[in-house]
């Protein structure tokens, strides 16, 4: 068996490979259920539909999907240009720190301006944290993947230093958490009877802007060319440094805003672990959505469903909630595997010699 480069990428496979990956992931999920002594098919159906039977569940889906979509749209801009920001988790955390400062200091006495100020502070925080790897890459050629990853750990330690120290709630029975945020520092609820709040609007706006940027703007085109061939981009006079700055700062800003959405939304308080791994899951969302805003919207909803299903599986099926991450990453793995078929076709020549099956 060997691979043959297609003369152009297969359009059919671009759409089929996510579907194949989903089916394979569903099979893995059923194997996991079966190994836990559950009825595989019935569990899978419960797993995927139970979170959505009522309006409250739909609200939860939107509130989970919004940050994933928002961050993934930002990441996709860089990924398309070959700029690998894997620091969204840390950028989100610094967004929490900056906006948390605003909320804790001005929230109790503030009025209508507190929330917009928090959003701006969160965006600035995320951008500051993303500017570090961007600057080190542009100025010193330091690998942005490694730097942005290291900063994830630093941001997490920074937040826990605040929550275990200066920001700890004096009335919180020594639990590591901040004071509850004042009503002025919270997003208003969008749909009655759910926890879905106005922060969802950011994700919707991001999808629209992301689509315009990617397919209708010159800067978007430049970034795409940079990703396809750095040499061609340089020849055409597009600056790689600019691609690094745009890719990092945009994704940093949206990650920071997602952090505001968390503390000014369902949490209404600041905890040391403000993000349930959204920064990492958003990488999967971006790939699964083919770095395309509409695709990201769909894959974000799917990933959010997996989060809810994981929580539910923990409560009703007695499974560890890490099944969420397990299935999300399995999906990514299958996607990268089936993506090979977009660029290559498989040619069987005589008997299969190499065991290239996995």
């Amino acid at each position, binding site marked *: 068996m060997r*691979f043959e*480069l297609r003369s152009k990428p297969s359009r059919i496979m671009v759409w089929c490979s996510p579907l194949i990956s989903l089916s394979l992931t569903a099979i893995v999920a059923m194997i996991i259920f079966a190994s836990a002594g559950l009825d595989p098919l019935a569990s899978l159906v419960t797993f995927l539909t139970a979170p959505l039977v009522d309006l409250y569940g739909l609200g939860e889906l939107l509130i989970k999907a919004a940050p994933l979509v928002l961050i993934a749209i930002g990441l996709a801009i860089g990924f398309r240009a070959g700029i*690998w920001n*894997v620091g969204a988790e840390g950028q989100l955390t610094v967004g929490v720190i900056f906006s948390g400062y605003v909320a804790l200091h001005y929230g109790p006495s503030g009025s209508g301006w507190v929330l917009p100020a928090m959003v701006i502070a969160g965006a600035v925080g995320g951008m500051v944290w993303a500017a570090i790897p961007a600057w*080190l890459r542009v*100025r*010193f*050629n*330091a*690998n942005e*993947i*490694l*730097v942005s*990853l*290291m*900063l*994830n*750990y*630093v941001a997490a*330690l*920074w937040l*826990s*230093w605040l929550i*275990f*120290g200066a920001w700890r709630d004096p009335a919180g029975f020594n639990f590591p958490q901040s004071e509850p945020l004042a009503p002025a520092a919270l997003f208003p609820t969008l749909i009655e009877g759910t926890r879905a709040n106005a922060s969802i609007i950011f994700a919707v706006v991001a999808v629209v802007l992301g689509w315009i940027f990617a397919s209708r703007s010159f800067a978007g085109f430049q970034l795409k060319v940079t990703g396809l061939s750095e040499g061609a981009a340089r020849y055409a006079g597009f600056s790689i440094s600019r691609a690094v700055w745009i890719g990092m700062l945009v994704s940093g800003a949206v990650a920071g805003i997602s952090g505001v959405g968390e503390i000014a939304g369902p949490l209404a308080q600041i905890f040391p672990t403000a993000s349930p791994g959204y920064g*990492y899951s958003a*990488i*999967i969302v971006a*790939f699964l959505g083919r770095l395309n805003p509409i695709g990201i919207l769909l894959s974000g909803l799917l990933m959010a469903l997996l989060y809810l299903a994981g929580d539910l599986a923990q409560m009703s099926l007695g499974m*560890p909630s*890490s*099944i*969420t*991450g*397990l299935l*999300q*990453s*399995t999906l*990514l*793995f299958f996607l*990268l*595997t089936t*993506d*090979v078929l977009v*660029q*290559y076709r498989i040619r069987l020549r005589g008997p299969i010699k*190499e065991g*290239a099956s*996995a």
Partner: protein
Amino acid sequence: MNQFLPILIATLVAGTPLVYSALGELVAERSGVLNMGVEGMMVIGAVVAFIVMMTTGSLFLAIIAAMLAAMLLALMFAVLAVSFRANQVAVGLALTIFGTSLGSYLGKSYVGMAIVMEPSVLTAYAARIPLLGSVLGQLHPLVWLSWVLFAGVWFFLQRSRAGLILKAVGEAPLSAHALGYRVSAIRYLATLFGGAMAGVAGAYISIVYTSLWTEGLIAGRGWIAVALVVFATWRPVRCFLGAYLFGGATIAQLFAQSAGIGLPSELMSALPYLVTIIVLVLISRNAALMRLNIPASLGKPFTAEG
């Protein structure tokens, strides 16, 4: 001297997992494979070693199992990156996310348990060696084995014919192919070796270093190992010494205490990550040095057909 010795020992103990994982990654990268999934492979090594240790009580079995489990992940990487020519950065990220979540899934029911280990017979013998005994006797045999590994990797890459072939595959895969060497097979082997070493590194952390399993146990050490290979500019000796630099940064708390400096523990914990960034910047700013040393085909898929 009385203050120096505990710090030396703590540095060696903390640096050892990086010696294993970074030397493994170094060999893989020298063959042209950029596996950024070291973190994921270490998590799997750590959790599998811990589970096997809890159920069988055998350190030997635990380490073998950790190596095999991490090699399985490395095999997934090799199939995708070497055979399927997928983007190596993307596959490495996927491997880390996969390893981390599979690790917390498998280890869920073991969180909070601790391993109590008998001191090794070998350690008791080592303690009797004159002069060195006072240091060796306090170190786990896995620490000394990492020195053997270093010597082996150094000899393999710098002095052996097989090492020369591996480096040729990383530098000029087309020429190596033309000379009749099997580029893909050599890259598979190098990736699997990297996986096995990441597995040992993970096992060392969960069994020897902390003696417990918890989520987030590896805490970015796999990424530090990848960075370490960059600052070592793909040389084994610098990689080996660099591992102890980070060992030192990890136990900086000890230095600070003995010097009477009281700093927040969070700042101390952030130190290894900050040192990683600083050293990465210092090395990377010299673009000529990087270009001179980086394996020419690193991260690029190879096709015999061109």
